[in-house]
């Protein structure tokens, strides 16, 4: 593993909640709750967790795409651009817009619906380029797109099609191409392969990985599929109920998980050539608008103590490059509190 890499993206005590009103009643959904995160340059950071744990919301917050009903309740999101830390949550819309795509870009879930269905792929590329490059380059938009497709090894024919004519895997590769058009330093990918078949998923993941290697960029990949993380990620963060409960290298997560939730998660994964019954987590995931007190995992945790019910543990380093948020480590209660 490469050492001493600088963090390129950082959050400090980030809180982003959804506030919903239905007929005068207010509901607060604590989707991202006190998250501290560091993403290093030139790495693939995998963010894992079950549906409704807030991982997609965290990606939105990282992209500074906070629009009602999502609201920022505290904390900062910092980008490191040319050795300067910029807090994007306090930037004005125009300044933020300048960073989008050139410094950071975003691949969302659902390739079918993110491309305008009535415009050819090349027109979509043109629309995006028109807003981001100078007047001169506008005329060459098609040339830029073609060159980019060539670099990615995609067929130029694709530019002439409408989105619905492409297969799911091809469509998602087009969105990868769209997101990397301006060579951003950071690519945020939110469940980019969830709706795809395994073969197409493999194609997209391989493309993403090769681009990351070639341009030494950073990829933050959100997916619930631990198998995908095992293939592509360098470091993995595990999210549970709006919090990051464990961050470590891929090897540490798979070989030596420390948080009880991660242990369950890794152990419950089906593996080939092993048909033994796998143990699963008891109970159900908590609802984000009705969180339990203290550590959100304590109702399902076999090691829960009175302390866990009372107080929420901080995420601290317990080994080299291995952080967890748990009072119970290796059978011992954590001393600091």
């Amino acid at each position: 593993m490469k050492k001493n890499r600088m963090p390129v993206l950082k959050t400090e005590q980030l809180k982003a909640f959804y506030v919903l009103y239905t007929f005068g009643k207010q509901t607060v959904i604590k989707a991202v709750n006190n998250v501290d995160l560091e993403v290093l340059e030139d790495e693939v950071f995998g963010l894992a967790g079950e549906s409704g744990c807030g991982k997609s919301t965290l990606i939105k917050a990282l992209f500074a795409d906070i629009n009602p009903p999502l609201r920022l309740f505290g904390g900062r999101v910092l980008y490191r651009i040319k050795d300067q830390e910029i807090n994007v949550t306090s930037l004005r819309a125009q300044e933020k817009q300048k960073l989008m795509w050139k410094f950071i870009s975003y691949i969302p879930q659902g390739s079918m619906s993110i491309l305008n269905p009535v415009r050819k792929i090349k027109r979509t590329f043109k629309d995006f380029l028109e807003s981001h490059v100078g007047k001169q380059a506008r005329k060459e938009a098609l040339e830029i797109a073609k060159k980019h497709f060539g670099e990615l090894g995609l067929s130029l024919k694709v530019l002439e099609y409408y989105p619905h004519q492409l297969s799911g895997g091809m469509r998602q590769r087009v969105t990868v191409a769209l997101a990397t058009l301006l060579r951003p330093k950071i690519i945020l990918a939110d469940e980019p392969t969830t709706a795809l078949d395994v073969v197409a998923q493999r194609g997209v993941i391989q493309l993403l990985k090769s681009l990351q290697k070639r341009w030494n960029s950073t990829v933050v990949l959100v997916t619930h599929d631990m198998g995908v993380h095992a293939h592509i990620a360098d470091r993995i963060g595990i999210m549970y109920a709006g919090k990051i409960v464990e961050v470590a290298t891929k090897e540490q997560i798979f070989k030596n998980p420390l948080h009880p939730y991660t242990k369950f998660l890794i152990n419950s994964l089906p593996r080939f050539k092993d048909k033994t019954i796998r143990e699963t987590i008891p109970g159900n995931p908590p609802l984000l608008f009705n969180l339990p007190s203290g550590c959100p995992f304590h109702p399902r945790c076999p090691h829960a103590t009175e302390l866990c019910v009372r107080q929420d543990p901080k995420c601290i380093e317990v080994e080299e490059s291995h952080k967890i948020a748990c009072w119970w480590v290796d059978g011992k209660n954590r001393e600091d509190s």
Partner: protein
Amino acid sequence: MAFVKTYLIPRLIHYFLVLFLGLTAVFVLPRLMPLDPVEEQIAQYQTFGAYIPPEQLEQIINTLRELYGLKGTLLQQYTGFWRRLFTGDFGPSLAQYPTPVSELIASHLPWTIGLLSLTTVFSWIIAVLVGGIAGYYRGRWAEILDDIVMLIRPIPYYIMAIICLIFFGYIIPLFPLGGGMGIGREFSFNLETIRNILLHGTLPALTLIIVGVAWQFQSMKLIVQSVRAEDYVRYAEATGVKKRIIAFRYIIRNAMLPMVTQLGLQFGFIFSGALITEMVFTYPGVGLLLYNAVVKADYNLIMGILVFSVVAVATSILFLDLLYPLVDPRIRYK
């Protein structure tokens, strides 16, 4: 040629089917009228004091029946109806005997076409543009616009027409109260006549546009609301595509597609709309002609106008349907 096979031919089949049913309805409906046109006419002759000897009466009745296509059994009448359709001859009008029906329609049609198709298309374009922009940008002005539309939208056209007539005709007499051009004027291409036609047309056109825009503005706004929630719009927004590009190429372009169908429906209402407009403003179009025909039980004229409107409406809907794949690529390859 997938377009011809999977789109054009089925549409054409559907078109002819609807045309057939609609025209059959046109044939059936007047025959349900309680007034026998022939007896009406005889009665009318007699009230003018003309004496018709009984042996001639039979002959006159026969001639009239033939003239109105009422001779023979219902089936014979029906085949005769289609024969008349294909030759384009609807016979003479009763009320304005012996002017042929086709001539009457031809002289009134330009007024209706000029007023209604222009206002329909015009209000559609305004509604799509204003509704699209207001629906996307949602500023304070958009809210005020919305409130105004919420007040206008539920008012039926007829009430609206009367309100406008009272307001701009009686209270502030800006425009003439009725007619197509000044009384006793002959149509000719000079500046004065054209000015006059425009002046007479303004009030009916204004009411049609107000109501038309309010109706379609509402639908456009609803469609825009769902389009702006689509993932591709949100994605484009999040990645910093310029608002102007999103408004026109994403929102309006995509919301326009269902609105094209709406335009087709609006054409369907043209003749019903013409009837009321032209009556309130005594505008000399087909609607007024039709109303008079109904009142006077003018068989041939009613049929002529109904046939004409059915064909015109069905054809305009077909035309829009065929146009649709050009604007929506998803249809083309289905």
